[in-house]
């Protein structure tokens, strides 16, 4: 379990950022993962008093504070109406309701876990992250970076794409063996694979939303997978095209159902 000497409920992002520049400090968000990490740190920096737990909508995008819980996203009417209910569907398999009330979008995105359903979905929706020091960065770029000491303040999800997520789990509520998020926008369809088991990445972009099995097969052949205790590389490569097809089909269904809801 994590061990801290001091606990600071940060009163400003300036304060949190300054404290976090020391290697002996750590940001605490939902604490769901951190608690188990066995870290020993001098100072834990709590972001919960900074008003970063809001979901705001403007004409072009949803701006989500880093401390927003996965449960708040899953049950947010505006988000689900705009993106065809994908947040409710994609987040529901993550452990349980109490867990998702604790786990935050900031902790999920910052951690860049390979198994993250959250990162896969947000990549498919072309999300951006806002960092306190560096400003806005595309999630696609952020996913490839090493962990640093900047603070993630918001995630911006532009409107205009429909998405669906499919995953395979060894048992319900377990972490996924493979995640596929597909989205369809004006420039065609995008496919993201996560839990490869490495970090989620975009494996196809701008393809036809009606891509057939042979296209999905070719994408899976070109993608990189690995083996871990949960599944082999070969298994993941075999299952991936099926998830891609299902996710694309689900996108086109929500597309037809909800064209008017996200203007």
């Amino acid at each position, binding site marked *: 379990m994590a061990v801290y000497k001091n*606990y600071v409920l940060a009163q400003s992002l300036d304060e949190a950022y300054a404290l976090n520049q020391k290697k002996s400090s750590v940001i605490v968000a939902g*604490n*769901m993962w951190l608690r188990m990490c066995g870290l020993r740190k001098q100072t834990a920096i709590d972001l*919960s008093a900074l008003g970063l737990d809001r979901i705001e909508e403007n004409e072009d995008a949803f701006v989500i504070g880093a401390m927003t819980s996965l449960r708040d996203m899953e049950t947010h009417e505006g988000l689900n109406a705009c993106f065809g209910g994908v947040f409710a569907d994609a987040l529901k398999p993550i452990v*349980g309701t*109490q867990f998702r*009330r*604790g786990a935050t979008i900031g902790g999920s995105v910052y951690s860049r876990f390979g198994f993250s359903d959250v990162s896969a979905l947000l990549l498919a929706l072309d999300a951006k992250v806002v960092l306190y020091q560096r400003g806005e960065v595309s999630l696609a770029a952020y996913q490839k970076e090493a962990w640093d000491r900047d603070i993630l303040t918001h995630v911006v999800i532009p409107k205009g794409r429909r998405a669906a997520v499919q995953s395979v789990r060894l048992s*319900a509520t377990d972490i996924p063996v493979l995640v596929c998020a597909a989205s369809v926008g004006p420039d065609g369809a995008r496919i993201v694979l996560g839990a490869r088991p490495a970090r989620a990445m975009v494996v196809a972009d701008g393809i036809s939303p009606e891509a057939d099995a042979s296209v999905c097969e070719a994408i899976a052949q070109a993608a990189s997978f690995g083996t871990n205790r949960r599944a082999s590389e070969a298994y993941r490569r075999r299952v991936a095209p099926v998830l891609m097809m299902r996710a694309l089909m689900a996108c086109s269904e929500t597309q037809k159902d909800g064209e008017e809801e996200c203007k």
Partner: protein
Amino acid sequence: MMEIRFKLNGRDVTAMAEADDSLYQVLRSLGISSVKCGCETTNCGLCTVHMDGKAVLSCSVPAPRCAGHEIVTLEGLQDEAKRLGACLADEGAEQCGFCAPGLMMNVLALAKENPGASDEEIDAYMAGNLCRCSGYMSQRRAVRRYLAMIAQEVSA
């Protein structure tokens, strides 16, 4: 050590906590014995309590974060616990009973949030409460029975 003040089951309390203590540890130190730690890895739901009216896992809530908030445990919901307990007993929904405190706290949160929950919604809501004995079907029946009882009272 730091001093934390919060509301516990309707009463103002002051507790001493280390910087890395969880809410679970503080509640136990205050003599709250309904709250138990099953896994301490956020998986089992046994440590569920209500924080500002919502079900949370007390094993992962940092204790210092609770300052100024309202925490409710099963000790503070005895009437509801009695009636829900009767539904669990009637449906044979527990054997060893180890999972019951966390399960009950989550059912009581469900009853507030979605009193008309369907079976599918009950299953989804309760997915984070693991039980090694019941097989879950009897628990679902008990939750259904409890929600129906509440609905009847409301309409009466």
